[in-house]
């Protein structure tokens, strides 16, 4: 049953936009710089600056914003929890009381800025994975981490690991859905009040998924070996990565924003 179950979390969207054409390294670096900026300094104008950059990038990438935001639905609990924690645990001027704990103004401020920072983290990484194909992403990571080669760290294997994992996310999600339905058909209770029953039900899905993944790993290894993959660095893929003017401009802009963020602490 092959139905398009909508876009999976962070899945690559084919396109020819300015953002798609940027070197993967630019996007990776840019993403990191933006995230780092807001982690370092969470004043509202810094957050505003960085979120504008990201939204501008999303706009330029021509990926529909609705697609990007769809994934947020699954994360709403995380966001809500973070807000509540900050609101309740930050000391300061209390705004109101909620069942014994005080919610402070500073807490609300911090909570709101945390939500926005998480949002930036999510949007930035989604943009990265949506506009960069897994193999390109892998080459980008491999190229950036290549100095680590001298420390005997297997950079190229690591990068192909990431790209292969990304490629299989939709497949594994689909498999999980099928197995869940099959176990539900045998009476597995995923919503049971008893935690033990629920755990057992999840085991009934995780074990087969794991078994399938192991089989998949074995099959993939055979397929890759048959196509002469020897684990070495793919100089062609990384060698064909070239910085162009666009990249310089993009990195320049993002770095400027970073400097501003630091200066305005």
């Amino acid at each position: 049953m092959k139905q398009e179950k909508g876009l999976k979390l962070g899945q690559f969207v084919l396109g020819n936009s300015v953002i798609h054409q940027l070197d993967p390294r630019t996007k990776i670096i840019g993403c990191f710089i933006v995230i780092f900026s807001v982690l370092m300094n969470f004043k509202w104008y810094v957050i505003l600056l960085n979120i504008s950059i990201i939204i501008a990038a999303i706009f330029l990438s021509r990926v529909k914003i609705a697609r990007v935001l769809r994934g947020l639905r699954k994360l709403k609990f995380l966001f809500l929890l973070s807000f509540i924690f900050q609101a309740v645990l930050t000391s300061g001027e209390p705004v109101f009381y909620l069942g014994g704990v005080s919610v402070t103004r500073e807490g609300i401020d911090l909570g709101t800025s945390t939500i926005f920072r998480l949002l930036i983290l999510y949007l930035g990484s989604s943009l990265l994975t949506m506009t960069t194909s897994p193999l390109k992403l892998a080459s980008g990571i491999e190229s950036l981490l290549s100095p680590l080669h001298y420390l005997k760290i297997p950079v190229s294997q690591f990068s192909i690991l990431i790209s292969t994992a990304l490629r299989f996310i939709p497949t594994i999600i689909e498999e999980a859905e099928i197995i869940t339905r099959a176990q539900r058909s045998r009476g597995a209770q995923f919503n049971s009040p008893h935690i033990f029953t629920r755990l057992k039900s999840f085991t009934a899905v995780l074990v087969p998924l794991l078994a399938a993944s192991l089989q998949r790993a074995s099959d993939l290894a055979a397929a890759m070996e048959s196509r002469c993959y020897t684990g070495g660095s793919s100089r062609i893929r990384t060698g064909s990565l070239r910085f162009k003017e666009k990249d310089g401009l993009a990195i320049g802009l993002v770095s400027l924003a970073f400097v501003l963020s630091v200066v305005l602490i």
Partner: protein
Amino acid sequence: MPVIDVQNLTHVYLPGTPYEKKALDGVTLSVNQGEFLGVVGANGSGKSTMIQHFNGLLSPTAGKVTICGWDTAVKQHRNELWKKVGLVFQYPEQQLFEATVFDDVSYGPRNLGLSSPDIERRTIEALKKVGLEPDTVAGLSPICLSGGLRRRVAIAGVLAMKPEILVLDEPTAGLDPLGKEMILKLIKKLQQEDHITIVMVSHSIREIILLAGRVAVLEKGRLIAFGNIKEVLRQECFQALPGVMLPDYLQLIYTLAGRGKNVNTGIITLAEAELEIAKLLEEKNK
């Protein structure tokens, strides 16, 4: 009263989104107690969607589905249907997860809340039904078994729940000829000995001919034929269906009929086809 009653069933996935897909469109059919229904159609015809309505996994977007007298629109009914309707998915051996064969087959009965002696009895019975020797396999880990044996264990897991209706989605997929035969024999035996109602999805007409009484043909979500095998095979729309595997001997008879030869296109088995060809050869020799 039929045990499965489908009235104008329509099912739409992800309605209101850009990925909206109508998988079933106004399907009406019914299955009586003890009957064997074959469901045939190409990939994407809606077969897998339809059978998930039979055990309460899905609820209709429009129309009504009544199983053993229960309306599947009611959530309570849907949550209980798994106890009456056993659904064997494609490649069911991929869902084995317990450490031993016994534990996996008894998973269903355990979820039914039966007593330990009952669970044991049913598990052993189910293993015997699929042709496995409980003493030999019960303690083994499913990983040690071959694909064909694992499939039988998975089917035993569903049989152990003693369902009133058994639904199988392409039970012979991926098996070699001997494996296929064994599974088909097993299913036939179940129907003859236990008189369970059986619904079997397949894209092989040969299998349907061997086992089913009536057949439902789906294409792109619509029911385009429903009835006795012989009648359905006679219908024009059916013969031109892509993705449905007609046995070669039927293909032969239909092609010869198309070329103007005097053959009875109402036959359905290999033996009957052979007789027809023999007749043609006799005529030729004269």
